[in-house]
């Protein structure tokens, strides 16, 4: 499973403070911690409160790359901030994210081509997030078509069926799972699937959050999920992920399978 560590995000107070005070140590620690917890990539988001997001993105990417050359997922809605981030990445980067809105497709798929980046494509557009899987699939198809149009391999597209918090949008979870299953049939090679996992437990009591996250992750893995943006430092969540993958025969069983995964 491809795991994108979610922790370097200006929405978290410690990261916002580190960006403001240019405190490299905080970012270094967060980056290395996530790498040691087996993140495959790190999400990089300057947060909503940043006064100069472009400068903040540049500082964050450079600071992270002082300690690791891991893949980075540049996470921003602003085109110029995205380009700044992508231009600095040492490893093949990930765009987080495009959606099925035509203008977004044009802007971000051009960047993906220019910087040889993978793209996370959200199944939403100007109207919003469809309520069922059929609506999501329609937008997923647009994103797959965009790959063909811009000459990007469909296996470089990570379709994100956009999970909403279960406390306010309970019917969405099963629609997202169906979308994950169905989207494999959209192209050959099949697009990959990703989830912004923590969103599912947003607003739920803190003692339930981790449980909701790991339960949904296991369900999504059984539906064929390829990647997740999640809290890689949550050990129980990682254990659930490893176990779900084991049961899906992605890893060969042995008694110490959790340890075996972490030795990889």
């Amino acid at each position, binding site marked *: 499973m491809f795991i994108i560590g979610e922790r370097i995000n200006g929405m978290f107070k410690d990261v916002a403070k580190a960006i403001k005070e240019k405190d490299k140590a905080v970012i270094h620690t967060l980056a290395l911690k996530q790498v040691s917890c087996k993140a495959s990539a790190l999400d990089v988001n300057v947060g909503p409160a940043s006064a100069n997001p472009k400068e903040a993105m540049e500082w964050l990417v450079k600071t992270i790359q002082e300690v690791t050359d891991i893949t980075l997922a540049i996470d921003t809605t602003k085109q110029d901030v995205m380009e700044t981030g992508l231009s600095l990445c040492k490893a093949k980067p990930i765009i987080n994210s495009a959606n099925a809105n035509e203008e977004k497709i044009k802007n971000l798929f051009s960047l993906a081509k220019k910087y040889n980046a993978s793209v996370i494509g959200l199944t939403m557009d100007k109207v919003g997030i469809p309520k069922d899987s059929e609506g999501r699939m329609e937008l997923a198809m647009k994103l797959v078509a965009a790959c063909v149009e811009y000459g990007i391999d469909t296996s470089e597209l990570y379709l994100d069926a956009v999970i909403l918090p279960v406390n306010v949008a309970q019917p969405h979870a099963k629609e997202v799972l169906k979308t994950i299953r169905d989207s494999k049939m959209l192209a050959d090679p099949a697009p990959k699937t990703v989830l912004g996992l923590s969103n599912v437990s947003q607003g739920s009591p803190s003692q339930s959050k981790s449980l909701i996250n790991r339960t949904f992750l296991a369900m999504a893995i059984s539906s064929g999920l390829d990647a997740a943006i999640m809290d890689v430092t949550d050990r129980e969540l990682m254990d659930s992920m490893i176990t779900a993958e084991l049961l899906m025969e992605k890893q060969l069983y042995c008694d*110490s399978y959790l340890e075996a995964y972490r*030795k*990889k």
Partner: protein
Amino acid sequence: MERLIEKWQDKISEVVIGAKKPITIGGETGIYFIDGEDKCPNPPRVAMEVWDMEPEAWPEVLKTNFGNALKDPVEWAKLCADKFSADLICLRLASTHPDTKNASSQEAGKTLEKILKAVSVPLIVIGSSAPEKDNEVMAHCANAAKGENCLFGIATQDNYKTLTAACLSSGHSIISEAPIDINIAKQLNILICDMQFSADKIVIHHATGALGYGLEYTYSIMERTRLAGLSGDRMLSMPMINFVGQEAWRTKEAKTGQKDTGILWEVATATAYLNSGADILVMNHPKAVEQINKAIKALKG
């Protein structure tokens, strides 16, 4: 039509054996002998078995190749290395078994030291399959061969700690054995690595069990192991060894068949293992060794 060449994400670890003339095994980045996919930097190697006592159960057709050398392990080793061009010598310390001569660790250690002096090819050292005695003998022998970078065996899930510790402190590599069970093979490698032993010094042996399980089971487990290793399973991405001679010459057909039956049996077994990813073949009959070396050369192209 375009040929599809599989690209694997990982490679098999390389294990170096020996000190005087070290050889490297493993390092495969694809399946052996598939044109275009196989970029195996180190070809499979053939080891010949040498016992520290005359193997009474061996049939005459096998014994006759070694003559009086069967009574002297040093001569026997020299014969295999010099005349029969063995890449490695596999010393089996059969005399230490309580049911044979019950030779002491010290005696076994002396034999090992003499052979190390007499030949320059790398050594594989295995015990007598008496677990308790083996622990004592192998710990002593590992220390006696310190710095010689041998391959010691055989660690099993029930009995791996003493041998692992001995190899760790004397700098040898280790054979980890599971009874035709890929899950146990993986688990044992984890257990050995948990003792701070390097995964790059482990060679896997999938034992061929008794009572009806045979070559075809081992063959398919070896294939699965190699595919898992190449697919990124670090606890299975090790080179593999097979004790071909031991398996072939204990069959009724090899022992009692026509003159060449045993040789053919050994060659057929070894060829199958070669194609399922074997890195070291431990063999007995010089003619079988000659044939299999030809096969390796021909398959490599």
